[in-house]
């Protein structure tokens, strides 16, 4: 590992004198940004090197394959699929399936997780179901769902939903149960009502944990889209993978994988950004200590 020690940030100056808090915060934010750029550059160079190597190995040793595609072939597949609008159709189809299922999972998961803390009976009643459904492999039930709900949008969205909803429920539940009791006591002492306890304390305190759940749900949702489209679809990135495999065309598979990774990574990073924005106290408290 090259020169690991130099990447450890120098300890930020700790000062509580009036006015210096904001300044040192700004400084602390600027420095990692420069580091992030240089790290992104190094990462980009590393990936570019890998791609070149891949192309070389392919040209020198493989030359022709129905299992492996070279970077150039993938680019060619892109140039073939993109202008006709076919690629866009796949992207849009998968994107819409994902978004519907994912947003539904968020809309259901957060209230359910929160209510399970508020209501012990609901918790007892739901827990075995959650454990049961969570343990059911989606790959196994996907064909059934498609038979039941047709090959349109909603069977796919449902499979995405089934994958994404559990991290949301479980993280919301965990986040809410881990809220320090004295925060609740403060609001109670000031005469706050039960709904206010939820809105003013439990949700904001649990927010970082909930956001982590939303991030974990992205990956499971993306897998859901692909699996769902394997079993019956006429468009989508998962369909593109399946169809291309059937006709022994590896390049579009790689293309689809590329976009799936790009999408999953993008959504994950975006939510991480939102998390830091919504809960600055959470990350900054760690930095400060």
């Amino acid at each position, binding site marked *: 590992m090259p020169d690991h020690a130099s990447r450890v940030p120098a300890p930020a100056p700790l000062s509580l004198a009036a006015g210096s808090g904001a300044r040192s915060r700004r400084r602390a934010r600027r420095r990692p940004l420069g580091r992030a750029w240089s790290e992104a550059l190094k990462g980009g160079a590393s990936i570019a090197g890998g791609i070149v190597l891949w192309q070389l190995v392919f040209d020198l040793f493989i030359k022709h394959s129905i299992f492996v595609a070279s970077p150039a072939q993938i680019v060619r597949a892109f140039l073939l699929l993109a202008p006709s609008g076919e690629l866009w159709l796949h992207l849009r189809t998968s994107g819409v399936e994902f978004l519907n299922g994912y947003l539904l999972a968020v809309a259901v998961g957060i209230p359910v997780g929160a209510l399970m803390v508020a209501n012990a009976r609901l918790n007892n009643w739901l827990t075995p179901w959650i454990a049961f459904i969570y343990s059911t492999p989606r790959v196994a039930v996907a064909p059934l769902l498609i038979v039941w709900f047709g090959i349109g949008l909603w069977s796919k969205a449902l499979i995405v939903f089934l994958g994404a909803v559990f991290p949301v429920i479980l993280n919301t539940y965990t986040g809410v149960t881990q809220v320090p009791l004295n*925060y609740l*006591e*403060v*609001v109670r*002492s000031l005469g706050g009502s039960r709904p206010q306890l939820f809105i003013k304390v439990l949700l904001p*305190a649990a927010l970082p944990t909930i956001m982590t759940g939303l991030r974990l749900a992205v990956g499971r949702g993306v897998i859901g889209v692909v699996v769902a489209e394997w079993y019956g679809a006429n468009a989508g990135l998962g369909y593109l993978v399946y169809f291309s495999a059937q006709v022994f065309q590896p390049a579009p598979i790689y293309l689809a994988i590329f976009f799936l990774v790009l999408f999953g990574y993008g959504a994950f990073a975006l939510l991480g950004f939102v998390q830091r924005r919504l809960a600055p106290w959470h990350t900054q*408290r760690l930095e400060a200590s």
Partner: protein
Amino acid sequence: MPTKLEIKDLCKGFTSLRSEQSLPVFSGLELRVAENEFICIVGPSGCGKTTFLRILDGLIPFDSGEILLDGQRVIKPGIDKGFVFQDSSLLPWRTVVDNIILGLELHGTPRREARARARHYVELVGLRGFENHYPYELSGGMQQRVNLARALIIEPQVLLMDEPFASLDAQTREIMQLELLKTWGGTRKTVLFVTHQIEEAVYLADRVVVFSSRPATIKAEIPIELTRPRPLAVKRSPQFLAYIDRIWSMIEAEVRRSMLEQPGAEV
């Protein structure tokens, strides 16, 4: 002085999980607090001081007896009572000013108006310039000042303070005591202040109430006749030291007794 708060024959027990029987914390506690009086409660650790304040605030129920605030029964928490908690209980996702206005916000005061009113209290506890800081950016002393401001802004009838300075270092603690008295001089609330530091109790109080070990009864009530305002130097006066000696000897006996009764209990 008219009576502000009256506690009559208060009984409270906690059911322990193991024995399934209720072990008394209070059996027949009586206390009368006058309007604008500053009461300090001292007593051995675990005797029920926190429990007492929580009952007065309405946070936990009691078994029997009566608690009257201005002649009215206390049943639930509310903004007629302000509670300053022992450990930092600031909400970490709220800035200083948003922590201070929490009570107003919960009772429907528009944010703008609440923030305007907060200005006075920010000033009062000496936190100008820190309104938009987050709690983690504040020192322990500053955090406790926010706690105090949060309890003061709702203009409570009684202020209940549970060892608010216990976690501060000695110097900060002294400054906070001085400032608390200054603030109190301006607002003149009825205060019940729990501490395990006798010196702190004598310095702050009009009257020091000594709790016995559990089940707690009032072992003594000592009026403190030191003139106000009290500079910190008063702590070195012979009169002050005499109070300390007197109260310490009472507590010592209680602590010994409770140690003998519950071997291994922290003191």
